[in-house]
């Protein structure tokens, strides 16, 4: 049985019924077993441990302190509460990934509130909550703030639903807070007043990230906060913080490991320029740098003094040109991870190839995703240049407007260790621009050469051949994203019948129908989830799937305009909690 992700069950397979053989007594007293198990952190290992025998199951559940729930609907708060009595840290993920791209209607679900109500009752000593793609209301944040006196760490990634009211509650009541990390969260004009609610004697913060919140905060209060939190190691401010304000923050916190700057566009006097340059030079421990909104060649040099130790440079909010980018890179020899905007073009990527021999991860984002300005962006040449210079590359996310099979074949020969290969040729169904062939050969090369591949996103003109190769060769593949690809059910079937470790499959706008959907009957219980939108699946097919597999939730999201027999958006996932009790009217559980 696939041990991932944690699917907490009430009882393991051998204990619920009366035919349980009597188990021989354990050679270890419970205390010893529990002590040993308390060293095991990984939730996958713990899941395996819990299946060994009943006393191991019990020892495991009593010693587990960290809970990881990859799909909040796969289990219910009640089931979790019954099984695990002593939880201090919880990671909870909600919506399917395509919600990031506006493909899910508002109010779809994944509201954390019912979870918090249960946590407040059962886990009063909760210290850490990490949420991803969940809806978090102010009411929930208030409940959180008031229910857990020892609460330390809150991380909200791609969440929505809260305003500064909720954040004010956190700031005011969480006396022991060490981490407030808000990433990529969708906020409409969340006010900045919450920052001023940290009490005057509050000094425990180690991580503060409010880079994605739009509003101005009180700089005076921020400065005071930063100067009294001596253990602060991560500070990511938002765009409202200016360069000279940043300088003052850096003077108070030269010990920072991670910094997200504010706006880099400001008229500076020569004195201010010197001050900020010197402040950066004093940040000897900086490993991660981001922000840099509107950075340009005039002020980038102030950073140089802090770049020697940088391992992760995130320029995804700073669309640089190749020249200034190359100059900056020359100061960053230790980069392992780099995120850039495609304004750096192929020339900039050549500089990456020559300046960053230790690079392991590259992400190139499009400046102009909707092609309003017909800019070149990056091409296969840039990717090739990086692959030649950065042999340790194992993670790539690459948005481009043209690609060739030959380039990809060479790239994976140069870098055979890819674990994450996400190539997005932005025009749907676009062939190899030189030969006009489908891009099948490219992805065949990827799966054949990169035996460690765990995550793959395909794009361009693709026939079923691509999926045949994926099914046959991608033995370690866990996540596959497909868009505008394939010819027939056969393609999807190949993937479902191959890929032994597949956990997440998300498909849009591809000609896979009921036969394909149903060919994965047995597989879906071993996966976290399947998403299919705008394919050829019908309600009939979904109903059949639901009937055959009662432990799967087969949900269809109805659109106003959609034809009643077509299932335009289908979300299938395993669950021990049964059908959703909070489903909105447009989500049908079959």
């Amino acid at each position, binding site marked *: 049985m696939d041990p991932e992700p944690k699917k907490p069950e009430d009882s393991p397979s051998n204990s619920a019924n009366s035919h349980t053989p009597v188990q021989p007594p354990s050679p270890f007293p419970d205390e010893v077993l529990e002590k040993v198990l308390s060293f095991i952190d990984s939730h996958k290992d713990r899941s395996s441990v819990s299946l060994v025998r009943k006393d191991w199951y019990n020892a495991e559940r009593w010693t587990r302190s960290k809970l990881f729930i990859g799909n909040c609907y796969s289990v219910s708060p009640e089931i979790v509460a019954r099984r695990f009595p002593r939880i201090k840290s919880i990671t909870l993920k909600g919506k399917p990934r395509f919600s990031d791209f*506006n493909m899910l209607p508002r109010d779809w679900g994944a509201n954390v509130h019912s979870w918090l109500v249960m946590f407040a009752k059962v886990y009063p000593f909760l210290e850490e909550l990490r949420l991803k793609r969940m809806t978090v209301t102010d009411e929930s944040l208030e409940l959180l703030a008031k229910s857990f006196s020892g609460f330390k760490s809150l991380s909200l990634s791609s969440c929505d639903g809260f305003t500064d009211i909720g954040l004010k509650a956190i700031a005011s009541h969480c006396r022991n807070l060490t981490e407030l990390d808000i990433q990529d969260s969708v906020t409409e*004009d969340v006010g900045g007043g919450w920052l001023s609610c940290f009490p005057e004697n509050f000094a425990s913060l180690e991580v503060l990230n409010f880079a994605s919140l739009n509003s101005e905060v009180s700089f005076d209060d921020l400065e005071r906060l930063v100067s009294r939190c001596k253990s602060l190691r991560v500070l990511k401010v938002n765009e409202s913080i200016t360069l000279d304000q940043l*300088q003052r923050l850096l003077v108070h916190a030269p010990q920072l490991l991670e910094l997200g700057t504010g706006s880099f*566009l400001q*008229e500076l006097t020569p004195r201010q320029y010197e001050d900020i340059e010197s402040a950066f030079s004093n940040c000897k421990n900086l490993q991660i740098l981001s922000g840099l909104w509107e950075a340009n060649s005039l002020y980038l040099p102030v950073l140089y003094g802090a770049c020697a130790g940088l391992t992760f440079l995130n320029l995804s909010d700073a669309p640089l040109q190749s020249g200034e980018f190359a100059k900056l890179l020359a100061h960053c020899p230790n980069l392992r991870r780099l995120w850039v905007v495609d304004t750096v073009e192929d020339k900039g990527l050549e500089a990456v190839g020559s300046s960053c021999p230790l690079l392991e991860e590259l992400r190139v984002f499009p400046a102009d995703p909707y092609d*309003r*300005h017909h800019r070149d962006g990056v091409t296969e040449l840039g990717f090739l240049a990086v692959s030649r210079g950065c042999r340790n590359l194992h993670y790539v996310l690459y948005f481009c407007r043209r690609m060739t099979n030959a380039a990809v074949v060479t790239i994976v020969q140069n870098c055979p260790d890819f674990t994450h290969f996400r190539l997005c040729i932005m025009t749907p169904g676009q062939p190899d621009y030189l030969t006009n062939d489908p891009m099948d050969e490219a992805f065949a090369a990827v799966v054949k050469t990169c035996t460690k591949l765990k995550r793959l996103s395909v794009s361009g003109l693709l026939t079923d051949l691509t999926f045949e190769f994926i099914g046959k060769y991608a033995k370690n593949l866990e996540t596959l994203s497909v868009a505008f690809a394939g010819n027939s059910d056969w393609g999807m079937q190949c993937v479902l019948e191959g890929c032994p470790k597949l956990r997440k499959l998300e498909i849009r706008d591809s*000609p896979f129908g009921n036969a394909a959907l149903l060919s994965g009957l047995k597989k879906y219980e071993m996966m976290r989830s399947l998403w299919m939108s705008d394919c050829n699946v019908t309600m009939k097919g979904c109903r059949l799937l639901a009937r055959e597999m009662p432990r799967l939730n087969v949900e269809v999201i109805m659109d106003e305009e959609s034809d009643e027999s077509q299932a335009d958006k289908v979300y299938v996932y395993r669950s021990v909690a049964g059908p959703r009790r909070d489903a909105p009217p447009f989500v049908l559980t079959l």
Partner: protein
Amino acid sequence: MEVQLELALSSGSGKGSDPNQDCDQRKKRSFEEAFMGVKKKDVDDLHETLPLLIWDGNEEKKQQFDGELLEQKHIPKLAISNNREDNFVVVGWPPVKSWRRQFCHQISHRECTTNYVNVENNGGGGGGGRGSNSMYVKVKMEGVGITRKLNLSVHRSYHSLTAKLIAMFGICEENVEKYKLTYQDKEGHWLLARDVPWETFIHSVQRLKLQKMATTFYS
């Protein structure tokens, strides 16, 4: 031998109505090229009908391909966005997170902004007291739903303010000319920003608005 599946599809925005077409004629690709992956030379031949996909690969596969294609609704959903200036945009594609800004920076604007070195020191020391002097005003751009906020205290000229606004709203080079910066003063009147000296502007501005040229004529 090529297979052409012809599908007549109206392209919505005719040549004249798309302001983005002015941006760079040389690089412009028509809807067919951009969306259907058709080469430019083929587009000219095809004129009004659009091939769904052109592929002269393996003959056998191709037959299967055609047949399947014709039966299935293998047509990407086109959701026309509210902004009339857009070309056709497929919902959720490319898969970039919605909060990520679209950058419309042009090199020429960036070069302009680098000319503002060595601004006069106002006697109080460059950074002294800056924190409490931040001056946030609301900025609205006509046609854009969300109102933004801008800190005026870091700017000392219309030049730098304009650069910031261009950056903030991602205004393309050609469109810069089409907008006028107006501001609301303490008495509530809306005035053209550049009509007054910077110092006057900065002392009385309450809000900013970027208005399209035609409308300012009547305000």
